[in-house]
């Protein structure tokens, strides 16, 4: 099924759905790329740049499709570079500053487990383009997870300092993981149409995976009731505006030019 021919309302929902997935990817890619020449090993500089590249690839595919769905002659770059922080709808976990290596790896672990579950469902989307992008992305995510898990294990069981840093990162990040499973109204509509994934339904599997993995390192992972949300509505942390002023610098300083 090609969903571009659906009615106006569906079209708006599909655009919001796809552009949000692009936003998630481009913002996480931006953060990961900040590790370039800052990693604890040269191998990590390379690996994190590689993962950043995977996410920028996803972002481009989703933005291109979002632009096509919208049909307003906007390009992938218009969507990435000319929207404001209130228009960006990425989930907040993607935008938080990189912190230390423990923070970056815990975020990566949480997201890798999430995307592993999410993409397995998204490949079944009735929207062929979305399914095809998910098909490509899932291969990358399997590899990402294979990398983030051993890192969490080593740091959690390495030294007192590394364990403390991991615990601190978990503590900070658990306030923003809940949003991964919150469903806005337009996504619920698309779930009914067989296009989107019910993220809420992934929560038990995510909890189980994360808890089992962490408990093997004697870490109790419990959900916190305090959850920071708002990303899909364009209500972000203070960090996103700074990220965008960096990312969009050239396009905004020299409007309308080709690069």
């Amino acid at each position, binding site marked *: 099924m090609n969903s571009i021919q659906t009615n106006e309302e569906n079209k708006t929902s599909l655009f919001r759905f796809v552009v949000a997935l692009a936003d998630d990817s*481009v913002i996480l890619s*931006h953060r990961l*790329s*900040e590790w*370039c*020449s*800052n*990693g*604890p*090993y*040269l*191998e*990590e*500089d*390379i690996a994190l*740049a*590689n993962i*950043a*590249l995977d996410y*920028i*690839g996803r*972002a*481009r595919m989703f*933005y291109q499709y979002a632009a096509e769905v919208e049909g307003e002659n906007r390009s*992938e*770059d218009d969507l*990435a*570079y000319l929207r404001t922080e209130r228009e960006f709808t990425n989930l907040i976990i993607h935008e938080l500053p990189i912190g*230390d*290596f423990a923070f970056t790896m815990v975020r990566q672990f949480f997201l890798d487990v999430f995307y592993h579950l999410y993409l397995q469902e998204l490949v079944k989307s009735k929207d062929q383009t979305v399914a095809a992008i998910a098909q490509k992305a899932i291969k990358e995510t399997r590899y990402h997870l294979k990398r983030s898990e051993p890192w969490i*294990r*080593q*740091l959690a*069981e*390495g*030294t007192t*300092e*590394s364990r403390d*840093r991991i615990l601190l990162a978990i503590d900070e990040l658990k306030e923003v993981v809940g949003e991964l499973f919150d469903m806005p109204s337009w996504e619920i509509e698309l779930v009914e149409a067989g296009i989107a994934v019910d993220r809420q339904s992934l929560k038990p599997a995510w909890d189980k995976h994360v808890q089992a993995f962490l408990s093997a390192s004697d870490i109790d992972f419990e959900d916190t009731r305090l959850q920071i949300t708002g990303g899909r509505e364009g209500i972000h942390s203070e960090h996103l505006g700074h990220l965008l002023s*960096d*990312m969009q*610098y*050239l*396009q905004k300083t*020299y409007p309308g*030019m*080709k*690069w």
Partner: protein
Amino acid sequence: MISMDTKTIDEAVELAKFEQKIANEEKIEPSDWMPEAYRKNVIRQMSQHAHSEIIGMQPEGNWITRAPTLRRKAVLLSKVQDEGGHGLYLYSATETLGITRSEMIEALQSRKAKYASIFNYPTLTWADIGAIGWLVDGAAIVNQISLQRTSYGPYARAMVRICKEESFHQRQGYEIMYELAHGTPVQKQMAQDAMNRFWWPSLMMFGPHDADSAHSGQSILWKVKRESNDFLRQKFIDQSVVQIEVLGLELPDPEIVWNEERGHYDSGPIDWDEFKRVINGGGPCNYQRIKHHKKAHQEGEWVREAVRAYRLKQQTKNVA
């Protein structure tokens, strides 16, 4: 006394074999006997090359988060990742000569080892990313193509592999410059300015004139270096002038003129005082580059410590 004489004789035989191999254009391999001075010479050159790849990630990394389009961002990320890969590959290849990566990093951080001096200049605008890809990688390729025939086997093989990727890097740099040079006046000015700033340091990348080059003589004899600094620099100037004409930019050196008799472009004098000053730590970013490298290294120490501790615990567990 007898043992010393035997040793001397053995060494003389080995040296003769070594020199014969060089004369026959055979590669020297890690397990082969080699004179200590050859080993040191190759370590110096290879580690300097590896450090250049790594330090070069800083000025280029400076624009990853600000690349103007998603495509440019992906290409730049991929390029910088390649440079990291080259550094890793070269560090490993250098380790075959009996030095560890941490010893090399220590030499870099204590300024005993050098890296390409051009990375001591800042990347001020997006056009600088174009100029680095086009001119700096371009100059590096001219040098590295000749090094595909270097006498040390692991280095020669590394160069074959690295040259392939570098030619992509040069093309992406030239493409950035082309787009800017054919863009708005402000973009064209950006391109001109970047080329003007990177032109002279690019020429300096080939090192001093042949007559003044400290390491050249022996390196050429041992076929570590295959072509002279001036020969390679001329080759670079000749190819670049044509490329500048295609861009439609003004030449960065008013003395560049075609010399029919030589069949080459003549060009103006290089400011060797600047070259020496920057090599000896007086460039705009020398301090910043090493400081950044040390800072990242220190900030990562707890991670490396954790990895060592974890491995030790696993080994103890396995033994028990």
